[in-house]
């Protein structure tokens, strides 16, 4: 198989980059080791669109965060992805920390934020915005342009758009080695050999391993595990903004934020780990998360947890994003070290990668005449009015059969998720696309029904349906 460009890694960066490249007459492959898009860092992070005051001035992180956040609303609107500009608050608990707020404010200005997008609040103003904030809070930095987005929905949407415009998505396609011969990369993958003129390395925590395959040893990813708790919708309005504490050396600390779907996310911890393929959470993870979160909002309780999870962040030893042509081969573009604020920066990163490709491309990139920047808008029964639901079911009865009770997800939506341009192939894929199984019962009731629908739509036996590909089987042989 021959491609102009092979993108390694179908996270949010790889997928948005693929979408960007799909505007041009290029043969592009989006290559993914896992069974789906968004199945590593992009599925398990805070989902925060940071305003951009936190990153160190002059870094790529600072520049691309500010640019990315500016672009986020537009990208999300075009792709039918929920994005809410709810603003963020960095809460201070002492006079020293109020000084830190002032530094952050100044840093924001230096990084290019509008002065009127930020405001330092006293306690009274803070309590007005966040009645549940700790009595120990003395003030906060309000940042009006910060927001929340669903990271995996953005990734799925970008990949669907790319696929609609001709990008080929290759799953279960781990790259084992890369050769460069006759001005062409030859990738040896789990699905056979793939040739490409250019490679974009968006392999997340594995981006250093991929770069090493062409002799580029400049990247050094030390993955950091972030552990989170997700709280039930019944406490969904405990906070109205993204609530941070003052940042430390190890990152932005534990945050509390509403999610676009009405839950509350609490986390992350920050733990340096060795294993790049396991986001297993530690035994005291949840109690640590809540201990820290209770400093900001004392009423938040572990009892409201519906699930907990871990995610790895692709932290590079330089602490900055590493984006650019490799010194080992200029046709190999690294997009590595994309830790926080990677999600916020992602639309700008994708544009920057396109610029780099344009600058090194042999010849002119030619725009397609029929490029569609959007995707088919997914049907979300749970968000519809009764009148809309009535009309929808009248058109297609599959939307009248509710499979996931907790999140009110219909059979029609699950069928759509499986048959979409980058369709779900496993239970977690359906979950990320439709929310079936994301609710309080955590798929206790709908799990087997989702498997039945997958089995039917994909025409494979039910005991071959996995949780997330690979050996994540759910059922074994038939009973006696």
């Amino acid at each position, binding site marked *: 198989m021959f491609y102009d460009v092979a993108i390694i890694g179908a996270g949010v960066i790889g997928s948005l980059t693929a979408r960007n490249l799909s505007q041009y007459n290029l043969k592009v492959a989006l290559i993914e080791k896992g069974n789906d898009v968004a199945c590593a860092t992009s599925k398990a992070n805070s989902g925060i669109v940071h305003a951009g005051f936190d990153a160190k001035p002059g870094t790529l992180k600072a520049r691309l965060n500010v640019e990315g956040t500016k672009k986020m609303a537009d990208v999300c609107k075009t792709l039918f992805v929920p994005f809410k500009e709810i603003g963020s608050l960095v809460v201070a608990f002492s006079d020293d920390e109020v000084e830190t707020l002032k530094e952050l404010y100044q840093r924001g200005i230096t990084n290019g934020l509008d002065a009127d997008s930020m405001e330092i609040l006293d306690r009274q103003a803070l309590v007005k915005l966040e009645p549940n904030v700790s009595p120990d809070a003395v003030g906060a930095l309000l940042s009006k342009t910060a927001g929340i987005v669903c990271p995996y929905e953005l990734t799925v949407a970008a990949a669907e758009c790319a696929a609609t415009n001709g990008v080929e998505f290759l799953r279960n396609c781990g790259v084992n080695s890369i050769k460069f011969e006759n001005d062409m990369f030859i990738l040896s993958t789990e699905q056979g050999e793939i040739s490409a003129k250019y490679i974009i390395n968006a392999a997340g925590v594995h981006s250093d391993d991929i770069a090493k395959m062409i002799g580029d040893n400049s990247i050094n990813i030390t993955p950091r595990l972030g552990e989170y708790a997700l709280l039930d919708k019944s406490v969904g309005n405990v906070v109205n903004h993204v609530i941070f504490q003052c940042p430390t050396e190890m990152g932005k600390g534990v945050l509390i934020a509403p999610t676009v779907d009405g839950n509350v996310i609490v986390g992350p911890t920050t733990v340096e780990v060795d294993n790049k393929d396991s986001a297993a959470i530690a035994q005291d993870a949840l109690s640590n998360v809540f201990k820290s979160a209770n400093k900001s909002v004392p009423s938040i309780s572990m009892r409201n947890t519906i699930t907990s999870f871990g995610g790895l962040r692709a932290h590079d030893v330089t602490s900055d994003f590493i984006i650019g042509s490799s010194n080992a081969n200029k046709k190999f573009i690294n997009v590595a070290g994309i830790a926080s604020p990677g999600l916020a920066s992602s639309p700008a990163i994708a544009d920057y990668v396109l610029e780099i490709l344009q600058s090194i491309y042999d010849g002119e990139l030619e725009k397609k005449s029929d490029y569609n920047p959007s995707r088919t808008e997914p049907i979300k029964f749970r968000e519809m009015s009764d009148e809309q639901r009535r009309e929808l079911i009248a058109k297609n009865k599959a939307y009248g059969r509710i499979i996931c009770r907790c999140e009110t997800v219909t059979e029609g939506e699950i069928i759509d998720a499986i048959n979409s341009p980058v369709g779900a192939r496993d239970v977690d894929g359906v979950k990320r696309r439709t929310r079936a199984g994301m609710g309080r019962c955590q798929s206790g009731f709908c799990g*087997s029904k989702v498997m039945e629908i997958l089995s039917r739509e994909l025409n494979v036996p039910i*005991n071959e349906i996995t949780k997330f590909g690979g050996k994540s089987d759910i059922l074994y042989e038939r009973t006696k």
Partner: protein
Amino acid sequence: MKGRSKVNSTLKYDLVVIGGGPAGMAAALEAKKNGVGKIIILERAETLGGILEQCIHTGFGLHYFGEELSGPEYAHKFIELVEQSDIDVKTDTMVISISKERMVTAVNNQDGFIQIDATAVILAMGCRERARGALDIAGSRASGVMTAGAAQKFVNIDGYMPGKKIVILGSGDIGLIMARRMTLEGAQVKMVCELMPYSGGLTRNIVQCLDDFDIPLKLSCTVIEVHGTERVEGITIAQVDENRNVIDGTQEFVECDTLLLSVGLIPENELSKQIDIDMDPITSGPVVNEMRQTSLPGVFACGNVLQVHDLVDYVTTESQIAGLGAAKYISNPNNDDSRYAFTKGGDGVRYIVPQKVNINSKEEIKLYFRVADVYLKSKFVVSVGDEVLIEKRKQKFAPGEMENATLTLEMLEKIKENDEIVISIKER
């Protein structure tokens, strides 16, 4: 124009029963017996019967029918009666909302969007299992962790094995039943771990499901970590102290491919919360009177949505009360001369249902309650103020077994409005 007017019209029923499990069916049948005209049962599964359909073991009906039946057999006795009656049934139908005016909105893939104006509503939605997320278990998100009830459905309904080497966390009845079921299907059940120092299940299930198969029951023991990246490869268990904290040094790795959870049941009251009825924080079900009427007149609740039962027989009895209550309400909605006294769990009693009783009741009233711990050679005492109404001795009280006490008409006469009826456990 196929049925445009029909689609938009609102159906009118005297009684809408939400849920077609044992609770919903018994309530509907009892309402019918007491003269209610138009009744409809809305059930979200493909068939009536509720969770009984996957409970293929026996042990059902000993109290109510005086014979030992399997779950489906017990259910089918009621399904047949419903089918013989003129009660309407819609299966594969999900109620998505109810209003305080008792307008019920449901959807299915046959009729589409359904709106029903009901004189009375019986909530009989049952309960769900607590999931892993509610527990603080470390480790990966590997496949092979599921609730015991989900595994039961895979094995008994779908005919597939969810694992070969099994550890079960939680000794509730479903966990115990599944220990035996998986063993009979050829899996190796390594152990059942129970966080508490006693089992939450029925004694007969411990004997018949664990002891008879030499499956160890590890008390004061929990699972603290799941190992494996794709599929579960093992777990770490540990002993806990009296405050349920892990005792360091007792951690032990157990190889397995499956962890089944039987760690508690939660009444499914999401619909009840839409109409703002009073809820009991202990039962997680609505607050009801002796007819199982909630704080919103015309809305009743019974079965596991009201309180988690250990025996379906008690569900049936409770639901018949709700069915009768609904019938009385429908025949005369505005005739309420109730004067209430309130029940309260005293020492050693977690909760009592009903939470309030009409002292003008013309019938005796049975109170159902659960104890908070295991008590040996004790008695329960029902009292109002200083006056003891009932005293009953028992060899053993256990949280897994529901107890009851009956207030006779004579006793009710002694109770005044707003009195507190207290049940406590005392040493003999």
